[in-house]
């Protein structure tokens, strides 16, 4: 038998990849918070399934939970359709109500059995390896691994089969409709998939980690790439990374596994947010600074071109004069001149008197004529 900690990491990786695939589209379709709504309201489905089946291991619970997820989506749409509340409020009205009913049912009718609200929300990944799938006395590994593996397969099949349709309806719903794919059908199919994924995953990792795994890795990937296939692959990779590092964090500190994994997906997002090559905060700030200097150097070239061959050329091309005419402070003017010199746009032969080079002249002309 494989060591439980290895199995936990394998389970967590499968869950992370399974969540990342629908998560990418949730993020792109601006419906990230539907994952929050669904992962909470499925509690009602579980409670109702339990009332009927009176057995926590019955597959009816999973079915009812997935159905509640879809019902949540439908209720939000219905509420939206009345135009009496905005979409964000519709989500905020539906899932707390369904969740409350679920909590009440569980605490009234299922208080004695192992159907713990804490476990639903927070997950018990540590115990997952001990719930094994045994057929004919053969130990086939943790049950949840099979469940999540199946859901992962479903997700992959859906994306492969409907890649074109879901891509189009995500980026241009109107065009999708005009071409004859019903965005509504895709929407409900996709949201059913999100529900099934959430139901399968929350059993292992709890509903909050489902939200973290569905949103944080795709959002990080969104900052790293502009291509959909890459975004899916990166989300899956970052999700796995978050799951692994989270596991070791929880191991080191002896704290909640699901909480640590959620924390690590957040840390990964934070790093991407700051350091992403194109869209990170640092890169954006550096680009802004560079653009500011670039713009100023071009301004300088245009200024010199304007006054070239005019009577006041001597006066206008003095570095000190830039302060007056362009309202640059001395230090900034010095910097701009240095930069323009380095680019070979201007020369400064008899200190204080700037002259445009041919290159500088053509830059200024190109900019003004563009």
């Amino acid at each position, binding site marked *: 038998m494989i060591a439980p900690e290895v199995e936990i990491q394998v389970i967590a990786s499968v869950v992370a990849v399974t969540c990342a695939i629908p998560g990418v589209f949730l*993020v792109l379709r*601006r*419906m*990230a*918070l539907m*994952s*929050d709504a669904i992962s*909470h309201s499925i509690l009602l489905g579980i409670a109702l399934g339990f009332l009927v089946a009176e057995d926590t291991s019955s597959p009816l619970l999973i079915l009812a939970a997935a159905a509640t997820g879809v019902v949540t989506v439908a209720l939000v749409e219905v509420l939206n359709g*009345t135009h*009496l*509340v*905005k979409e*964000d*409020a519709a*989500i*905020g*009205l539906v899932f*707390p*109500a369904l*969740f*409350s*009913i679920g*909590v*009440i049912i569980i*605490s*009234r009718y299922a*208080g004695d059995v192992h159907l713990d*609200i*804490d476990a639903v*929300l*927070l997950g018990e990944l540590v115990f997952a390896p001990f719930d094994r799938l045994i057929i004919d006395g053969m130990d086939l590994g943790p049950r949840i691994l099979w469940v999540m593996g199946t859901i992962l397969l479903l997700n992959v099949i859906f994306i492969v089969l409907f890649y074109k349709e879901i891509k189009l309806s995500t980026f241009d719903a109107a065009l999708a409709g005009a071409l004859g794919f019903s965005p509504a059908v895709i929407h409900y199919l996709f949201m059913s998939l999100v529900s099934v994924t959430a139901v399968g995953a929350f059993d292992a990792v709890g509903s*909050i*980690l489902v*939200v*973290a795994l*569905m*949103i*944080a890795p795709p*959002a990080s990937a*969104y*900052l790293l790439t502009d291509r959909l296939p890459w975004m899916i692959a990166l989300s899956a990779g970052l999700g796995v990374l978050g799951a692994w590092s989270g596991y070791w*964090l*929880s191991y080191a*500190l*002896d*704290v*909640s596994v*699901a*909480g*640590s*994994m*959620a*924390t690590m*997906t*957040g840390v990964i*997002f934070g790093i991407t*947010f700051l350091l992403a090559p194109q*869209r990170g*905060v640092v890169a*954006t700030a550096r680009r802004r600074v560079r653009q500011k200097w670039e713009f100023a150097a071009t301004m300088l070239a245009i200024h010199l071109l304007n006054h070239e061959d005019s009577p006041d050329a001597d006066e206008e091309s003095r570095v000190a004069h830039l302060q007056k005419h362009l309202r640059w402070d001395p230090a900034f003017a010095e910097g701009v001149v240095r930069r323009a010199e380095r680019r070979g746009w201007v020369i400064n032969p008899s200190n204080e008197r700037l002259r445009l080079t041919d290159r500088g002249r053509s830059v200024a002309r190109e900019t003004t004529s563009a």
Partner: protein
Amino acid sequence: MAIPLTELFTDYTLRTVALGAAALGTVSGSLGTFAVLRKQSLLGDAISHAALPGIALAFLLTGSKAPFVLVLGAAIAGWIGTLVVMAVVGATRIKEDSALGIVLSVFFGIGLVLLTYIQKLPNASQAGLDRFLFGQAATMLERDVIVIAGLGAVALLVTGLFWKEFKLLSFDRDFGATVGFPMRFVDVVLTSMLVISIVIGLQTVGVVLMSAMVVAPAAAARQWTDRTGGMFILAGIFGAVAGVSGAMVSSTAARLPTGPTIVLCMSAIVLLSLTIAPNRGLVWAWFRRQHARRALRVDAVLRDLEALAGQHATPGHGHPLATLEAMRVGHGNVSRSLGKLEERGFARRLPNGDWALTDRGAREAARLHESGNGGAA
């Protein structure tokens, strides 16, 4: 299962819980008005989840479980969560929904890590911190109520002082900035008040359900009024009613947790408001639609009469009901529409049972043409 109305005044625990729930419902309900108007309903969800690590850290740092300390920690964490959402939305192309989702799940995860860490500490009297997850109104003490009411009063007072600015922020932020109000500062103040209104309820309703206490009363109040002031007051009342009734209902039965019961009471108020609120409610909308449809039908029959009259030289020429019905197959009851026309003097019934256009009816039909009212013609 009688609702213990008298016990509300005699039973100490129930009175405390009801008072606390009422105070909390009033504050979160009324301040939720701005969240709903600004389409920030789900910000409350993020704030309440983000508060969890603050509670744990406040306990870790001070070792105290005094409600004020924990609420302060929750407020700071919730506030930081809001700032993170704003920073992510402002600095990258990530949209608000994803930013909210990340903040709520990651902060909650950090909170769980801290809570489980605290549980492992030796001698820590951490018992009771996890009641913030789902709320436990039954354990509410007088000092909790004092904190709720005190902080809530501050939040309401500040809202009163900034009333004009908050309204400006909610409806026309750009105009406010143009006329010289520091809108960013106003935004920070309003968000801070929202944070306060949320964190004071965490202990009662829990982080998962607290967002409902912000969204639902305001969404219900919106149906009854078009004025911000009215909506603010009404949302406060709805919140208080839901709080008190939820507390009372849950005290009547064993194992009926308070937080979810309060939320369900609130949901009932929302449902009722969506259906029966005057003007906006679904029932009224339905009646209005029926009325409009009937009016269109009557107009259409009038037009048919006019068209028929145009084919005859004599103005008062009668036409059989069957002809008119044939012109409107599948468009409802023609004889009822004719009755309406007769009531208004636009049509009259000839002795032989046929229908004819009156002079007034001819003028009305001409007016319909002129006003360009295409209707169901």
